[in-house]
């Protein structure tokens, strides 16, 4: 029995040493590690709201993200590592989107899946820091901005049900789509 256990532990350790790791990673970072230009944007746009800072690493590179709540809405603001603003995302209820946008997105998703259920909806704003700051502060906006929608859904296609993430325009055009690879849940089940 001792030998069996030793072999099992040994094979576990050996396999662990050769395992490949997922390249996407998100982790908390201290505000002192964030470029001052990013901190200034957040403080100027959100005031004294509590900010959580995250570092992100994925296949396209590194980024910094600030997450906070304002008026009960969850905001994510993404910067590159130099502090240049990338986008602002807000978690919303899908039913709160304009009716024509809902119709366009629903039609597009129905073309991809035989059945789907939306899990999370985020509005994405793209524009200059001045315009995005005004949008956050609900001030009158001087300048154009692009609105996209990031949808996380559980969809069934050809009998397979998985989680997917779509980035769609206001007209329902698919700008990006990806299947979400979920981490194994056997440590939660067994």
């Amino acid at each position, binding site marked *: 029995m001792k030998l069996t256990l030793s072999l099992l532990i040994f094979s*576990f350790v050996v*396999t*662990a040493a050769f395992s490949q790791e997922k390249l996407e990673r*998100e982790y*908390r970072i201290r505000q002192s590690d964030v470029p001052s230009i990013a901190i200034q944007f957040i403080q100027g746009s959100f005031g004294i709201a509590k900010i959580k800072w995250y570092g992100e690493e994925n296949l396209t590179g590194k980024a910094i993200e600030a997450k906070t709540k304002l008026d009960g809405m969850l905001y994510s603001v993404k910067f590159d590592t130099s502090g240049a603003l990338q986008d602002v995302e807000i978690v919303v209820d899908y039913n709160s989107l304009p009716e024509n946008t809902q119709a366009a997105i629903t039609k597009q998703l129905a073309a991809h899946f035989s059945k789907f259920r939306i899990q999370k909806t985020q509005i994405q704003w793209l524009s200059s820091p001045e315009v995005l700051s005004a949008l956050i502060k609900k001030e009158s906006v001087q300048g154009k901005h692009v609105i996209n929608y990031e949808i996380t859904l559980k969809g069934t296609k050809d009998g397979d049900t998985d989680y997917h993430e779509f980035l769609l325009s206001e007209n329902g055009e698919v700008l990006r789509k990806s299947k979400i690879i979920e981490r194994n*849940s*056997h*440590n939660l*089940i067994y």
Partner: protein
Amino acid sequence: MRYLFLYILLTAACASSFAQNEIGLIPQINTDFKVGNRWKVNAKIEGRQLFFQNPYPAGLNEREFERLDLEFIASRRLAGQDAIGGGYLIRRSGGSFTHRFIQQYSITNKLTASRLAHRFRTDQTIEKDKALQLRLRYRLSWEKPLNGQAVDPREFYLKVNNEYLGILQNAKGNLEIRGLASLGYNISDKNQIETGIDYRMEKLADPNPVDKLFLNIGLYHSF
């Protein structure tokens, strides 16, 4: 952390103050094999070492390697990570073997910064000189990363679960409640190590319930 330590000490003190109790260690190695696109087999080897038991069998030491389990569950993925499965457990304990047949349905939900899993299980246990034991179980598990919004490689996480077991044997019903709080480390997406405190209240319908407190150590690997 101070409160967690205090809670563990208090729980240990409570467990040892009851009339019937056990304190021990549960080591576990758990592996997951993918079979095709939809099927998985989970294999688990788990032991139970007692360091303290009250009362303990006459003529035996209160320190005892009580049992060794080998469990296999085959499951079919339904949607996302929801799955239905069935399996078999064989247990070596007290010089004899116990056989258990298991059926389960599990649901895993992703929350904003954590994961929640529900497990519904039924099992039938056959043991020498004992009546067939039937159990109906429900377990809720919650996993929370201690850094960021998802558990990434080389990050710690907290896992908490709570399980309720209805037991029927010899036409007599009973109840068991389990609670586990553990700290996990995600070595990579295929390997995790966890350790924590597992507290169980058994035979709750009896006049003298049994309290058990274990230190759990688990190694998880996905092939």
